[in-house]
């Protein structure tokens, strides 16, 4: 095995991993605020990409304007979803929540198929596609965009959660929703916020990855599930653990696909998921805790 080859796979794995990390953090934010695993998370990723496509082609917006527009629209979809599906649920048992978010994801995907058809679409890269050499490997400018934007989002996230009132309130909810309610935090509002933030993050992930991988109405399924794997590895943290989880997953997947077999690429993530769930369900870095009776 060539060192250059390994470097090449690792580098491209990192940018995929960054995408998984963004999606994974989106999962975790909703999970921590509400206890819900939002199976529709991947659909925001799909919406981000396809809405950008339409903004560019139909509305003839420049890229710098198309991105915020599509993030905003995806966020609105997130809000509608929370209002229409999650909030009115009368029996919010885990199983009902799994089912309703799965139902929501199928519905959003179906509507996307209605609007954009079943074809895959390409979005132009943000700044050309002249490869950049790093050691013996090369990467595309888009890879750098992905890594840079992910980094910015993670930093902004950190600032939000630790240095703003609403971010701190959100963290309080994640430790103990009832207690947070008792000290006067508007928990319902925080739930809504969590959907807004994760929808926006999902959409950004979908936009920055689309120039590399193309996009279609059904890309959200796999990306969403991989993002969830990242979150599990990170112990459902909305911080650095999930980022590490995502990067790890991206790199292992890319190495596995390159060095073992590309057909089993998707299987690698899920095998890792199962191993983590079996051996360390609290995540790679988490501590176990006991359930109260």
């Amino acid at each position, binding site marked *: 095995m060539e060192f250059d080859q390994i470097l090449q796979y690792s580098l491209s794995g990192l940018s995929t991993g960054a995408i998984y990390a963004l999606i994974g953090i989106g999962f975790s934010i909703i999970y921590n605020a509400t206890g819900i695993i939002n199976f529709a998370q991947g659909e925001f990723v799909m919406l981000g990409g396809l809405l950008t496509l339409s903004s560019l082609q139909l509305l003839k917006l420049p890229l710098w304007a198309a991105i915020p527009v599509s993030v905003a629209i995806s966020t609105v979809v997130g809000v509608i979803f929370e209002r229409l599906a999650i909030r009115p649920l009368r029996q919010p048992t885990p199983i009902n929540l799994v089912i309703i978010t799965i139902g929501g994801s199928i519905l959003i995907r179906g509507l996307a198929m209605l609007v954009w058809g079943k074809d895959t679409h390409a979005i132009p890269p943000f700044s050309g596609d002249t490869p950049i050499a790093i050691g013996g490997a090369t990467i595309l400018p888009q890879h750098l965009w992905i890594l840079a934007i992910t980094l910015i989002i993670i930093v902004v996230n950190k600032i939000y959660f630790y240095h703003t009132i609403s971010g701190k309130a959100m963290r309080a909810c994640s430790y103990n929703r009832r207690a947070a309610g008792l000290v006067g935090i508007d928990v319902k509002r925080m739930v809504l916020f969590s959907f807004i933030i994760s929808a926006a993050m999902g959409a950004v992930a979908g936009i920055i990855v689309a120039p590399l991988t193309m996009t279609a109405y059904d890309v959200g399924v796999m990306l969403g599930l991989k993002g969830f794997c990242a979150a599990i590895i990170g112990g459902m943290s909305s911080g650095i653990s999930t980022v590490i989880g995502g990067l790890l997953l991206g790199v292992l997947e890319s190495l596995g696909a390159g060095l073992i077999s590309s057909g089993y690429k998707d299987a690698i993530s899920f095998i890792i998921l199962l191993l983590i769930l079996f051996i360390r369900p609290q995540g790679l870095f988490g*501590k176990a*805790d*006991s359930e109260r*009776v």
Partner: protein
Amino acid sequence: MLEVSGITQIFGGVTALEAVSFKIAKGEITGVIGPNGAGKTTLFNIISGIYRQTSGTVLLEGKDVSGFPPERLARLAMVRTFQNIELFGGMTVLENVMVGMHTKSSSGLLACSFKAPWSISEERRIRECAMTWLEFTGIADLADQTAGNLPFGKGRLLEIARALAVGPRIILMDEPAAGLNSQETLALAGLIKRIRDLDITVVLVEHDMELVMDICDRIVVLNLGKKLAEGTPREIQESPEVIAAYLGDDD
């Protein structure tokens, strides 16, 4: 009958129990009292195998049962009830008690699915026996109601009936009188005495001092995770430490 020694339980940084030891004699009613957060429920969770203690041992009839899972302890004739009642809400009252007969029956998955003759006769026996426990606790008239719809007081009785169906030699009850009115509490006291008369050792956590002093043979007092005192109801009432730490504060 039951002996705990040196039980310590640490949750993260919180020490919920610290080196708690005591013995419970066969056939007695023992009360475990102490303010909220003293560690009473945690102690029950450890004895009944729901939590694994940080250190210390539990001996049941001389046998070290530390770390045994609850289902194994049920087969060793130990059973408990819960502070926040844990009924099988979707099932009928009778079915709840029939689940209590689980260890006293043996039809497996296939026998049940194919309605093997022995499983049919066993089913009849389970039903009849469960019915007698409903009569014993005085809720036989509710047999066909859905357990989830029971008023709180009846739910407590159902939980006790269900536990008795296991055929225990020792029963742990976590605050059985909480949420009951005075009439129901009185009836409960009678029921607990009748349970003792069946030769079942009773351990109960309770806040209702009148009830505790009335029915308990011995009392263990916990405070802040430590054993503060132990003795007969009279000794406890007269113990200066207990009065200082617990009873005396608001009188």
